[in-house]
């Protein structure tokens, strides 16, 4: 473009620098949809500024992110109206390739961003595409890899990195494009807590460097919020609802944000609850650290709603009061090998009926293997596991299905029929249950999970949340009193994760024993009754949620305490509050 854009001319007249990104009344309609998300959105991003895009699921945040470097409309079948201007270039008039020198992208799934065989080749891939000479390619590659701390591993295959390492590599690849704008679309949604920390450490150093304007789409506000200068909030229909400096938006407009269904930092939620109970924290805290400081500033605090959780000591291994009834699961001296590697080592665990157990641990600790062995998905040595009187290592599929329901991480993997109703009917039919009884169960299940309208739909055509509900339905329809879920919230946004956990709470309240493998420790803290911490195939701790969170077991197993537990544990002046780990432990306020 040789003709100057009139908007650029206008902004050049002001003292403000030319915005790095200028979005003007942008609406995007995906092919085959009637509505536009986002709708009529206008904002600027200044050079060096860090902007967070917030909004409820489905409001078009990710779509908007894709529009910033021209993937929408050039590579994604969607119609864009309005203009996106990046350093004077109208994205609609440029190729994605040319725009890549202005806007670099990091996506959610690190796996899908890797195209070559070594870290060095991977980082060089972009500059090579730009036809830079070899020396320049290499110097950029080195600089970028050093920025994310991966230069020493330049000869390795990206597959050998952890999830956090691969996402750091993806950031290095974006940095190598030398673009003044960096867009990150949910960069930590697929990572475990250690990976999230790694990625945010890198982002923090980039923000401190100040060379990039950063646009961040992120649900995990607890980690992100410290870095962000300005927040832009979209509402459910994709319209711009609020924009402004971080603190002003989050603190002053908090009620509006709650109404919009936007996830808030848990420290802020805690402060709001306290405010409703008459404890005014000023300024309102946004991070765990600020929450600690604000509470320390208080001279006196009332007793927390749930106190005395620490009196139970955490034993390694079995931590349980004498059984009231037969336990749901009893694992005795379980060793399990996969190939030549020992995955589980002398596991002894007894899980009571009606409990909600979260199995946590770092990657490779053996969480999924233990869950699968309990549910009979993989065969354990006989006689080591007892699930409600059944040995899953010896039971046949039908008996097992009546005892344990297993929900895989990706619901699509377990769908086998072509309609929702058929999908639900499959289990009971295998059990040889008469047709009218099957129909009754299917109807009940459709109603329970709010899927009646969709009974003749193909399972693959459901929305993400509906698929998840259907997969839980199929696991429960044979009447299993025990439900096992393998990382059901992985790669999902917080709203959907929370919906599922609420569903599990409901089932648990009706008596279903729930076992869940997860990385999300705040969800664990809010929902589980017990935590089982695995470390290198051994039980590092097992006990009630409060007692495990109050102990050092999580830190010792290489995990990080969830944000609230971290904030309250640091308290010096209010020892009775140190064991608070959940929002509902706080003096009552409005439900969050």
């Amino acid at each position: 473009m040789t003709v100057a854009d009139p908007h650029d001319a206008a902004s050049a007249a002001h003292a403000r620098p030319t915005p790095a990104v200028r979005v003007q009344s942008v609406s995007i309609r995906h092919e085959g949809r009637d509505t536009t998300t986002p709708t009529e959105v206008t904002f600027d991003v200044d050079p060096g500024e860090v902007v967070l895009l917030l909004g409820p699921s489905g409001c078009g945040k990710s779509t908007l992110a894709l529009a910033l470097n021209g993937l929408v409309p050039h590579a994604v079948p969607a119609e864009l109206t309005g203009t996106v201007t990046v350093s004077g270039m109208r994205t609609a008039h440029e190729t994605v390739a040319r725009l890549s020198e202005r806007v670099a992208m990091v996506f959610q799934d690190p796996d899908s961003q890797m195209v070559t065989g070594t870290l060095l080749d991977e980082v060089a891939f972009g500059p090579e595409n730009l036809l830079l000479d070899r020396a320049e390619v290499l110097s950029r590659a080195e600089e970028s890899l050093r920025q994310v701390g991966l230069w020493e591993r330049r000869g390795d295959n990206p597959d050998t990195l952890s999830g956090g390492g691969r996402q750091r590599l993806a950031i290095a690849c974006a940095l190598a494009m030398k673009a003044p704008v960096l867009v990150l679309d949910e960069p930590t949604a697929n990572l475990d807590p250690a990976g999230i920390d790694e990625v945010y450490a890198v982002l923090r150093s980039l923000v401190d460097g100040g060379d990039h304007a950063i646009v961040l789409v992120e649900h995990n506000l607890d980690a992100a919020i410290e870095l962000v200068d300005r927040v832009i909030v979209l509402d459910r229909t994709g319209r711009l609802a609020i924009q402004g400096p971080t603190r002003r938006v989050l603190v002053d407009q908090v009620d509006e944000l709650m109404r919009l269904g936007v996830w808030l930092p848990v420290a802020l939620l805690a402060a709001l609850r306290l405010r409703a109970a008459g404890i005014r924290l000023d300024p309102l805290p946004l991070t765990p650290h600020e929450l600690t400081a604000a509470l320390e500033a208080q001279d006196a605090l009332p007793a927390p709603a749930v106190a005395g959780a620490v009196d139970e000591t955490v034993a390694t291994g079995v931590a349980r009061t004498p059984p009231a009834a037969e336990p749901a699961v009893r694992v005795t001296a379980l060793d399990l090998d996969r190939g030549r590697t020992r995955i589980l080592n002398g596991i002894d665990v007894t899980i009571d009926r009606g409990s909600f157990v979260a199995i946590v641990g770092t990657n490779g600790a053996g969480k999924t293997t233990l869950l699968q062995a309990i549910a009979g998905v993989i065969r354990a040595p006989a006689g080591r596991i007892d699930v409600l009187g059944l040995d899953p290592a010896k039971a046949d599929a039908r008996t097992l299905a009546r005892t344990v329901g297993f929900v895989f991480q990706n619901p699509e993997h377990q769908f086998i029929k072509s309609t929702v109703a058929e999908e639900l009917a499959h289990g009971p039919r295998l059990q040889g249950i008469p047709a009218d009884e099957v129909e009754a169960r299917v109807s009940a299940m459709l109603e329970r999970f709010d899927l009646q309208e969709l009974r003749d739909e193909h399972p693959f055509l459901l929305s993400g949340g509906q698929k998840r509900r259907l997969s839980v339905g199929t696991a429960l329809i044979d009447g299993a009193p025990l439900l096992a879920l393998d990382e059901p919230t992985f790669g999902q946004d917080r709203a959907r994760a929370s919906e599922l956990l609420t569903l599990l709470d409901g089932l648990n309240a009706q008596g279903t024993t729930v076992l869940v493998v997860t990385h999300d420790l705040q969800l664990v803290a809010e929902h589980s009754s017990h935590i089982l911490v695995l470390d290198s195939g051994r039980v590092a701790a097992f006990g009630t949620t409060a007692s495990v969170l109050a102990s050092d077991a999580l830190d010792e197993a290489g995990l990080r305490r969830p944000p609230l537990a971290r904030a309250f544990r640091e308290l010096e002046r209010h020892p009775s509050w140190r064991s608070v780990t959940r929002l509902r432990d706080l003096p009552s306020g409005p439900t969050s």
Partner: protein
Amino acid sequence: MTPSRAAVSTPPIDPYAAPADFGPRRFLHRLNPLSKIAAPLPAMALLLFTRDVMTPLVFCLVALTLLVIGAHLRARSLLLLLLAIPAIVGVMSVSFGIWADPSASADPSVIVEAGPLHLTVGGWLIGLATALRLAAIVLLALIGGLTSTGPDLVRSLVQQLRVPYRLGYTALAAFRFVPRFGHELEVIRQAHRVRGISDGRGPIAWLVRTAGYVVPLLAGAIRHAERVALAMDSRAFGAHPTRTERYSIAFRARDWIFIVAFWAATAIVIIAFAS
């Protein structure tokens, strides 16, 4: 897919390892990948038309010698070449020999007889020729296969044969899909087994089962491919008609010598034994 499991399922063989150099004796690694394909190609084609035992046997020995001397092989590959392949040839020669047309065989004397099956000397020789033919073709392919890497082959396809780089590098990116899909398939099978799909034996049940894996696998594959494409686009893939090649894969005099020498040897073997 958790990172941990993805990493565990990664095969030990790294198809992307940087071009390795193991010194002048392991000369095969120093040749252009294309020359290692071009050189044995005529021999592989001609082998399809031979019927004797000697021609494929000689090619087997030539290929084995080249690999043992000129390739840097791990103990496992060496064992496979030197023990497993002869063993497989032995087994195949017998099983092909049993089914060979007895009227076509030169020597009808029987070696072994078991019920209705009998193996004649002539039949066994036909079986041996067939087995050796297959082994020779495989070994000739392994000359290039064991000594070049996928990325190098793509680079030389782009640099020497002027294959469009978009095609070459997209194919290379697709290499990465393989272990991922392998893992995904395993998870899908587990999930289906849990749902009680594994009940039922026989080819029809197998077919139904396998068909059930296709939909979830394809749905995942298409989504993954779309994401990879977006990631590549946003890193300027396809920006220019060419891209910087950091490693140039040369096609040197030694490549020509290797090709010409191999072709000459091929001609000599064919003339000496086949006719």
